[in-house]
């Protein structure tokens, strides 16, 4: 198979590292060659953060370029829009509808764009948008947004439930396991 590409995007501090760790574990256990690329340091401080997950028979580049992402998983709506150029023609965006104002919006130098989900869809992109914060809260913690998103993303893969379960158990600390499993289930069901 050719290499498949998943981008995880959001705002520094939203928990995208756990999402990429879990996907990496899952894809390895399914027998793929995998590369995961992330950026640490300055950009983690509330800036746009991007993680690349690539898998296939043999993966060369650690990054995903414009027009290459099969799936974009976004923790925040504006970041989904920012990443649109990376989406493959027939790719899918799975996004949380949460809006976090970036500093230029907070200071009044720019405005947060309106109706982003509709605008994204008008480009022909397939957009699966949901209120992950509400579902995470329902699961027991607003921090479980990442597992809600992964639950939703799991729709687009053929991996069995048990494979996802094993990955969650391997990557999530035991004391948060119940909340995270619930969050994943809610994301998958909705």
């Amino acid at each position, binding site marked *: 198979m050719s290499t498949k590409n998943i981008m995880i995007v959001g705002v520094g501090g939203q928990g995208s590292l756990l999402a990429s760790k879990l996907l990496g574990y899952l894809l390895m256990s399914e027998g793929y060659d995998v*590369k995961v690329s992330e950026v640490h340091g300055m950009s983690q401080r509330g800036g746009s953060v991007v993680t690349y997950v690539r898998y296939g028979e043999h993966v060369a580049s650690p990054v995903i*370029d414009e*027009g290459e992402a099969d799936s974009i998983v976004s923790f925040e709506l504006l970041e989904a829009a920012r990443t649109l150029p990376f989406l*493959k023609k027939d790719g899918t965006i799975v996004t949380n509808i949460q809006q976090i104002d970036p500093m230029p919006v907070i200071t009044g130098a720019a405005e947060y764009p309106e109706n982003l989900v509709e605008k994204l869809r008008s480009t022909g992109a397939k957009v699966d948008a949901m209120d992950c914060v509400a579902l995470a809260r329902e699961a027991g913690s607003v921090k479980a947004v990442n597992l809600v998103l992964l639950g939703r993303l799991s729709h687009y893969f053929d991996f069995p439930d048990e494979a996802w379960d094993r990955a969650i158990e391997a990557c999530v600390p035991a004391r948060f396991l119940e909340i995270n499993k619930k969050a994943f289930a809610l994301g998958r069901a909705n």
Partner: protein
Amino acid sequence: MKELMLGNKAAARGLYEAGVCFASSYPGTPSTEITEELAKYDDVYSEWAPNEKVAMEAAFGASLAGRRSFCAMKHVGLNVAADPLYTMSYTGVNAGLVIAVADDPGMHSSQNEQDSRHHAIASKVPMLEPSDSAEALAYAKLAFEISEEFDTPVLLKMCTRVAHSQSVVETGERTVPEKTYNKDIAKYVMMPGNAKRRHPFVEERTKKLTGYAESSGINRVEMGGRDLGVITSSTSYQYVKEVFGDSISILKIGMAYPLPVEMIRDFASKVKKLAVVEELDPIMEEHVRALGIEVSGKDILPICGEFSQNLVAKALGGEVHTGRSLSETLPMRPPVMCPGCPHRGLFYTLKKLNCTVLGDIGCYTLGAVPPLGAIETTLCMGASVSSIHGFNKVLGEESEGKTVAVIGDSTFMHSGMTGLANIAYNGSNSTVIILDNSITGMTGHQQNPTTGYNIKGDPAGKIDLEALCRSMGFDRVAVVDPYDLAACEKVIREELASPAPSVIISRRPCALLKYVKRKPPLGVNKDKCVGCKSCMRIGCPAISIKGGRAEVDETLCVGCGVCTQLCRFDALKSAEKEA
């Protein structure tokens, strides 16, 4: 066992398997995790040193003592450690000594984009350059072999995309070779007479290493289509493979210095067109051109920034992927200080007082970003303290009354102390603010000599900043809590007005530290809020204006309460208290 492993963790694993016994580093993105991962092995002694020069010299001592030793740093850290490096090239080693240096093309978290291969060339120290995690592991082990075989320190060059990408590795067992220390003045005392005899040794060694580069297999040829031949290394090799697979021929360089000669001549003779694909400076390209071989490189590829597969495809005629975009311009999302960051209150106050602020390297560099916009300079580690002295000496009293240097606790220990000594010794009436958040923050929470804990989190020696500054001759040392805006303002006014140089320690632990208890998020009383936007002036990402009233994002707010001190209408309250 096969594992998906971060490049830095894989390097650490390779060092571990090679029997490294001693590691001393100063954290710096993207190098930090190598040493953090080494610290997880109980049979390796590891530590955070105050700076890279100290780390490298400590590793030198451990190598002399007969154990394989290691230090890691980011590219600019190697400038700090260049002094020992260039002469260690002459002394050579006893047990193997490996130095990891991590470049940051694209400057994800750095103040410049320098290419550390220049240091390898200038110091005449061999440099290995892995292109993924498996090579990071293998080359880390190999580096120790080369170090002992050729009697030289060896540089292991990482870059952001190798250091911070995970790929599959296979781990092995650890073996620990040991040597004994023998006194050898001619080899280890680099006074002129001895150094004169060591320099020819270095030149001879480089010749031998060039032979190694030709024949050892560290550099390899992957013949494919012969219309195009590409010489490449590191992550650039992966981009070339991504675009062209086996359809072109590749000379994959694993040893960045010294470069092979015959291998390149031979490869060039077999392909119709030759190109070098390397990030940053045209080092391999100039080496090839100096051999009289026609080659393209920076004429078709950029010298600035990172590469990617599309960029390589565009330059070399591969398939370029394109995407779509929205027609409107999206607001940028630059990094900002975290909610609850103790630096915020201090920078708010400095801006309010219209101070001239000379900055340094750390999270607090973000004090230059709107709306705080307080910091006016950032150069390198420690430069705030050294440069305020020169600034004030030239501009005199007027400047002394309104200029401050700001520097973090870890950066102060790294190279702020010597600048402070200069202020004390040569007498400028300067005001230095140490932003003591009790951790090395920017690189992800490493301990330092002021925190009282070592790399493993165990209790360790703790330098008392107040006592240190007083002992250096500063009679005025004030401590203030940056969450208390009124106290901050009072202290800064007093110290700027004082006739003697002073140090202000702005002390509160980083809000992201696990032991720092978060308070419940604040809420806005919409009846009291008049939408005056006073609370917006601190640039907290948790506060925004929605429908003409302030709103606090409960997922971001940590309840620090700095914003409540700006609200004249008592509209910002703890949600808990309000209920």
